[in-house]
């Protein structure tokens, strides 16, 4: 009991006014500390983010510059007289819109195709029972170990022997499936009880219908993540389209844009304008789909 009185005594030494003053001083101190912390974090973030984004911001800035402005010895970070002329010229000089369309067709079909084939395969691995299931699954996973460069020469020889060079299918077909997609979908499917499949079967639900009506709606986040990731990667493909497309008609954006690369130095601004045009779709899709991507692919991948 004595101890209580002691504390109470110590506490009571101070009058209410003194106490209030103490509160104010200490509260202000604590607030300042907190503000410095948040402010410091914010400042660090702003600095790092600007450094990361610098190449992109600079590209936009150059794209808006009249080419005369670029070719000075002055420091020219921002355009003094911003103009859209470069974009116009870029679109006129090379058939950029055609390339963009090609890329959309190719990346779109690859994305849809991967989702279909990967869903089917993952369904078989997760719900069906068949001979050699484990061996086949290991084989599929092993494909992730083979780097593209180990196959690209032979693939080129194969498709050229088929007379597939310079066609849409040569850009699309080799990419219609992905081991990573199969793995991702299978992980999600394995989290559903097998009874989900059995009861659907008892209700007379066929396999295809089960995938379309039950599995796909349940794995929207994985499909979303997969779609964003696949589309961006397909949009950004470089080596394969470089090898197998020759004509303008089938070129994708990444190859098409290099055509601007070869024109004379005066048209640097024009080339960068072209780059900005073709970056916009992939960045837009990324920003829109970022949340999906993280939810479906990364939070699961880490827990694994």
């Amino acid at each position, binding site marked *: 009991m004595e101890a209580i009185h002691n504390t109470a005594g110590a506490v009571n030494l101070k009058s209410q006014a003194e106490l209030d003053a103490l509160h104010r001083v200490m509260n202000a101190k604590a607030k300042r500390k907190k503000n410095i912390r948040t402010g410091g974090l914010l400042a660090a973030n702003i600095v790092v983010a600007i450094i990361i984004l610098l190449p992109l911001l*600079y590209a936009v800035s150059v794209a808006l510059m009249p080419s005369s402005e670029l070719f000075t010895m002055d420091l020219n970070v921002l355009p003094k007289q911003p103009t859209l002329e470069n974009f116009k010229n870029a679109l006129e000089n090379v058939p950029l819109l055609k390339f963009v369309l090609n890329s959309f067709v190719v990346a779109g079909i690859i994305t849809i195709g991967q989702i279909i084939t990967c869903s089917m395969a993952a369904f078989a691995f997760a719900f069906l029972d068949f001979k050699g299931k484990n061996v086949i699954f290991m084989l599929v996973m092993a494909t992730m170990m083979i780097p593209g460069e180990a196959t690209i020469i032979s693939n*080129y020889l194969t498709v050229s022997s088929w007379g597939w060079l310079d066609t849409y299918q040569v850009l699309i077909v*080799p990419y219609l499936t992905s081991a990573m997609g199969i793995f991702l979908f299978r992980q999600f499917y394995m989290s559903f009880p097998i009874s989900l499949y059995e009861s659907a079967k008892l209700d007379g639900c066929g396999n295809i219908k089960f995938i379309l009506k039950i599995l796909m709606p349940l794995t929207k986040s994985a499909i979303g993540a997969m779609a964003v990731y696949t589309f961006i990667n397909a949009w950004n493909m470089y080596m394969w389209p470089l090898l197998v497309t020759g004509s303008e008609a089938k070129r994708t954006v990444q190859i098409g844009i290099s055509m601007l690369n070869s024109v004379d130095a005066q048209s640097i601004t024009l080339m960068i304008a072209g780059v900005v045009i073709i970056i916009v779709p992939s960045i837009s899709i990324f920003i829109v789909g970022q949340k999906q991507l993280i939810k479906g692919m990364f939070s699961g991948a880490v827990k694994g």
Partner: protein
Amino acid sequence: MKKKPSLLERTRAYGFLLPCILIFAIFLFYPFFKTIFLSLYKTNKMGQAKLFVGIGNYMDLLTSSSFYNSLKVTLIFVVIVVVGSMAIGLLGAVLCNKAFPGIRAFSTAYALPMAIASSSAAMIFKIILHPSVGILNKLTGLNINWVSDPKYALVCVAILTAWLNSGINFLYFSAGLGNIDESIYERASVDGASPIQQFFHLTLPGLSPIMFYTLVVNIIQAFQSFGQVKILTQGGPGESTNLIVYSIYRDAFFNYRFGSAAAQSVILFVIVMILTLVMFKIEKKGVKY
């Protein structure tokens, strides 16, 4: 209850796997073995195997200084890229770990490079590094021809690649940080650990499982860099940026030496394979929890 699946059921299962298996077989397994096969031959310009030379292509490579240069350059490149891209990704993830105003915008910024194509990025960097109009020389007051100087070209390409690859690392590390139990930080602050001590004792070790995974993915990815070399330096000046993948491309599609290119592909595959296996061995030893 477990009954043997009927023949029909089994056939159905294979049916679902067919599209994937077919594509893997035609575009991965077959060409993989064909590459090994080709590496044992001299080919004609059409890529047809003409003359069996056994390990001749490999012997040629192993006695060629150009190939050793390629290996050396690739190794330096991979180290810079992996260290750089992981450091940037980690920095972003740590900065975005605690909630504060604008966190969404910042995390988008840190992840953004993953949405950018190597070719587009290379063209932007070409201007940034341009000796007379480039912003880098103007800002630093230097007068360096970055991509035409053998001293700097490789580093430039590597930094560009590190930037490109940092976006996905940011996502991996962010997810990894999210998986660290929040209460151990609370306990650490009660235990008296400063934020810096918390970072080195809790955050970094807590990330180590994902760190290994990310490291493997990054190494494989760095070995495959191509577009940026093709656009920025074409392997030059001299052979200072002649990464293996670019060397394969040049041998096959300019010199039409498919056999030699195939042999380089096989060597690349073996290197990546060994590195990956070693990493997994180390991981098993290193991560005890």
